[in-house]
């Protein structure tokens, strides 16, 4: 068996045994319950308030827009939870094991140091995938069952969000290979905040037709393209009408281009390669 897969499995089992998965699942189920109840209440109360309208066409549009808006709001929260999980897993894994010395009996085995990085990365990628599958699947199902609504380009959106969580996890692993878990957590959340604000500046700039603001937004996306991935995902999954209306809290007014998505792919690969390099050079 390849040492990368041995280490990936170890990482996976570790997350299960240390109750990280259990905690994530419990909180995730809580979220889904609250979200479903909330959706149910909004759905039924607005149905009654619009009974006066007799045009079923208008009613349909309103229903779709409401479901779409709530769906994206739900996914936005799920994305945030996944990113927090990705940042914490990535921040602890290298620094934690270097600090405790656990890593010493691993890297002295006949394996490459890069195997350790790739193994952990794969293990966490599996975990995040399962987590997002449950959370996004739950959100989609809850809305589908209650209102019959499904968002367009669901697969593309879900993949982009998964990719965003992988990007944050990889950045966290890079810093974690050099700095303490706490410092890494600070840096990663700081970067996430930067990209969040940058994204908003870009959106508002687009609505107000300020090219400078849009450029500032794009520039922060180059520093860390995580928020761009969310906005591209939201763009893919939004209803056609809200796409026309422009700004909404969970939609995308200024749409990151496919070029930005490609940039994010390269970005992730470069960060992963840097992680390997930093870890190879490091005295343990």
């Amino acid at each position, binding site marked *: *068996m390849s*040492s990368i897969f*041995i*280490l990936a499995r*170890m990482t996976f*089992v*570790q997350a299960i*045994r*240390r109750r990280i998965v259990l905690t994530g699942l419990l909180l995730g189920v809580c979220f889904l319950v609250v979200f479903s109840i909330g959706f149910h209440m909004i759905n039924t109360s607005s149905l009654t308030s619009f009974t006066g309208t007799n045009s079923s066409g208008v009613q349909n549009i309103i229903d779709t827009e409401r479901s779409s808006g709530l769906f994206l709001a739900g996914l936005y929260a799920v994305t945030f939870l996944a990113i927090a999980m990705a940042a914490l897993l990535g921040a602890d894994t290298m620094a934690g094991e270097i600090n*405790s*010395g*656990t890593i*010493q*009996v*691993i*890297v*002295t*085995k*006949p*394996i*490459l140091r890069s195997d350790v990085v790739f193994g952990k990365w794969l293990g966490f990628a599996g975990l995040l995938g399962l987590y997002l599958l449950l959370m996004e699947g739950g959100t989609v199902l809850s809305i589908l069952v209650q209102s019959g609504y499904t968002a367009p380009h669901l697969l593309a959106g879900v993949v982009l969000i998964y990719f965003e969580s992988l990007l944050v996890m990889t950045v966290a692993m890079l810093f974690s290979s050099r700095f303490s878990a706490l410092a890494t957590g600070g840096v990663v959340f700081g970067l996430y905040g930067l990209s969040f604000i940058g994204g908003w500046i870009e959106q508002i700039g687009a609505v107000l037709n300020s090219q400078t603001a849009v450029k500032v937004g794009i520039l922060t996306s180059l520093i860390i393209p995580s928020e761009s991935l969310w906005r591209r995902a939201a763009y893919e999954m939004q209803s056609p009408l809200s796409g026309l209306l422009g700004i909404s809290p969970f939609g995308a007014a200024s749409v990151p281009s496919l070029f930005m998505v490609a940039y994010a792919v390269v970005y992730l690969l470069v960060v992963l390669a840097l992680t390997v390099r930093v870890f190879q*050079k490091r*005295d*343990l």
Partner: protein
Amino acid sequence: MPPVPAIETNELRKEFGDNAAVKCLTLQIQQGEVFGFLGPNGAGKTTSIKMLVGLIKPTSGKASLLGAPLGDRSTRARIGFLPEHFRFQDWLTAREFLTLHGQLFGMHSRRLSGRVDELLERVGLDGFRDRHLSTFSKGMLQRIGLAQALLNQPALVFLDEPTSGLDPVGRILVRDIIHELRAEGTCVFLNSHLLSEIEVTCDRVAFISHGEVIRLLELASLNTGQITAVLRVKGLIPETISGLSTWAQQVQQEGDRLTLTIQNESVLPEINRYLVEHGVAVFEISPKHISLEELFIETVGKEGGL
């Protein structure tokens, strides 16, 4: 062609910032040898081991293990390592832990499973095989760590303070295991500041202080020089005492205590017979070897690593 040395280092040096933790380490250790690395705290023992097992990169100098340069991956399959501040994956059971590390050594599952059971029994943990390491005491962790270092039946084992967490029974276990390893032809590199432990297990020792080897010593030669023997006796008369000069270069008497300086301890039975024949009651004869401890203090100085 002579066999390749297990460890060969040439002016190995490691600096951390301005501070040289290891200044100049030049050693040659043969296969099958049990080698003790002795020094006060902060002398550079652990840094030296870490360089040899590839955890840290030397600033300069060269070294090879089993004939291959440092960091050679396939050579690591023949090396075992127990780190000083061992912390293991404590969410695994003892069996799972050893299985994981055996897999990392690249061992095949059939051979591994037998080896895991064998080692759990050898380190006295066979009753705990399905217990999580998080419930283990420090001594138990040290035992499982030792088992981990021996999984691959290594040709060379690095043990960094292997008995620091162990009670006397555990220490005897480690000592016995080292004796077995020597019998099997395994080279053991033992870091310790427990001198008595080094004294009973090692063939050779290096004293290290401030990052340099200051003395290399064959332990077999330690007790070949002059020794003193202390005797507790009753019924001595001056004539008997003067007769002792046949064997002893120096004789000192204080009440019932006699201190003799003799060439080697093989003359002690004759001295005993002589005293008994002259009506002296002998209660105790104890030869005093120069202990490694005395030698250590003499070499490294009383201030140690401070």
